[in-house]
C-alpha cells in the first residue's frame, strides 16, 4: 500500500517535471523565427497576414485591407461598410508597418449597371461618375472591384463631383 502510494505520488511530480520541460521547448519553438517570412510562429504581434486582414497604423487615419498579396487603402466608410467590415476587424499596427508591405491600389466601391457603360464610385449616398477608362486606370481602380447594380438604383442616387473634377455634367446610367 505504502509503495503504491509512493509510486502514485512520484507520478504527479514526474508529470510536473515533464510539463515544465515540454512548455520550455514549446515556448522556445514558438519564439524562434522558423517560417518563410523569417518571423516567429505566430508572427510578431499575433497578426496572421492573409486575405481580409484589416489594419490601421496607430497614428494614421487610413484603413487598409489585405487582398491578393497587397494592402489596399479603403477609400471611404461606405466602402468599409459595404465590404462587411466592422471596427472590431481593424487591427491596430505600429507606425511604419505598411512601409514594409506591398501597398496596392485603393479599394473603392465601384458600380455600374447592365445597360450602361458608365462606371461610378459610390461614396455614401452619392455616385461619382468616372469620365473615361484612362481616368479609371490612372486612379488605380480595378475592374474586378466593379459591382453590377440595378440601373434604377444608380439613377436615383444624387451625383457627386465627377472624377476627375470639372469634367462636365456627369453622364447618367
Amino acid at each position, binding site marked *: 500500500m505504502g509503495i503504491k502510494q509512493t509510486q502514485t505520488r512520484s507520478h504527479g511530480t514526474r508529470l510536473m517535471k515533464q510539463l515544465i520541460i515540454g512548455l520550455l521547448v514549446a*515556448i522556445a519553438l514558438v519564439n524562434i523565427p522558423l517560417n518563410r517570412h523569417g518571423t516567429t510562429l505566430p508572427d510578431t504581434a499575433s497578426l496572421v497576414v492573409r486575405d481580409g486582414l484589416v489594419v490601421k497604423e496607430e497614428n494614421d487615419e487610413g484603413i487598409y485591407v489585405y487582398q491578393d498579396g497587397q494592402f489596399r487603402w479603403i477609400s471611404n466608410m461606405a466602402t468599409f461598410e459595404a465590404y462587411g467590415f466592422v471596427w472590431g476587424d481593424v487591427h491596430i499596427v505600429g507606425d511604419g508597418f505598411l512601409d514594409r508591405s506591398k501597398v496596392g491600389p485603393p479599394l473603392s466601391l465601384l458600380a455600374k449597371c447592365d445597360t450602361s457603360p458608365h462606371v461610378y464610385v459610390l461614396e455614401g449616398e452619392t455616385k461619382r461618375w468616372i469620365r473615361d477608362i484612362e481616368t479609371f486606370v490612372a486612379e488605380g481602380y480595378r475592374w474586378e472591384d466593379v459591382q453590377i447594380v440595378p440601373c434604377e438604383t444608380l439613377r436615383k442616387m444624387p451625383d457627386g463631383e465627377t472624377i476627375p473634377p470639372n469634367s462636365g455634367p456627369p453622364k447618367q446610367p
Partner: protein
Amino acid sequence: MNDLAIIETILRNQRQFFSEIKQRVNLGQKMRAMIIASLIFFALHGAVMGSSHSVWQALSSAAKLPLLFLATLVICSPTLYFFNLLFGSDQSPTQHVVLVLTAITVTSVLLLSFSPIVLFFLLTTSHYQFFKLLNVAVFAIAGLIGVTFLIRGARLMSDPESEGTQTRRYVVYLWIVVYAFVGSQMAWALRPFVGAPGLGFELFRQLGGNFYANIFASIGEILGFLTVR
C-alpha cells in the same frame, strides 16, 4: 526536485500539510519549496502568454507574472495577520505567510496545467480580445481554487474551541475580496502580459483606465456591441 514533491503533498494530502503548518513543522523548507515552484510555474505561464506577441514580451511576462503574485502577497499578508491577531489567532507571521503561499502555489500549479491549453489557443487564434479574456478566465478559475485552499487551510489550522473562530473565518473571506482587488489592480499596473497586436513591445503601459472597464470592453468587442480602440 524535492520541492516538487512538497507541492504534490499540498495537492494530494492537504490535511497533513496544513496540520504540519499548524505544528510549525519545516516551515522554512515548505516556504522555500512553494516560492521556488510558484516562481517557475508563474514564469512559464507568463512566457506562454507573452509568446502571443514577441520574445521580449514572453521574457517580460515571465518576469512580471511571479512578481504580480508575490508582490500582492507582500502587500496583503500583514492585513490578514494583524486582523487574525486582533480576533484571537495564535499563529505566527510565518505560518500566515506559508498559508497564503499555499493558495498562491495551488494557483500557480493550476496555471501550469492550463498552459498547454493557452498555448493551443495562442497557435490557433489571432483574436487578441479573445486571447486576453481566455487568460482572465483561466486566472479566475485558478485563483478561485487557490483561495478555496486558503479557506480550507485557515479552517483546519484554527482551533475550533478558541474564541473568535467564526470572526476569523469572516476575516479570511473579507481578506480574499481585498486580495482579489489588490491583485487585479496590481495586474493592471504591471500590464501588458499578452501585448496588443501590432503595437511594439512595452515593459509597462502607461497608467489610466482600470482592469474591470477593460474586461467589460473586451467582452463588448467579442459580442460586437463595443469597439476597443
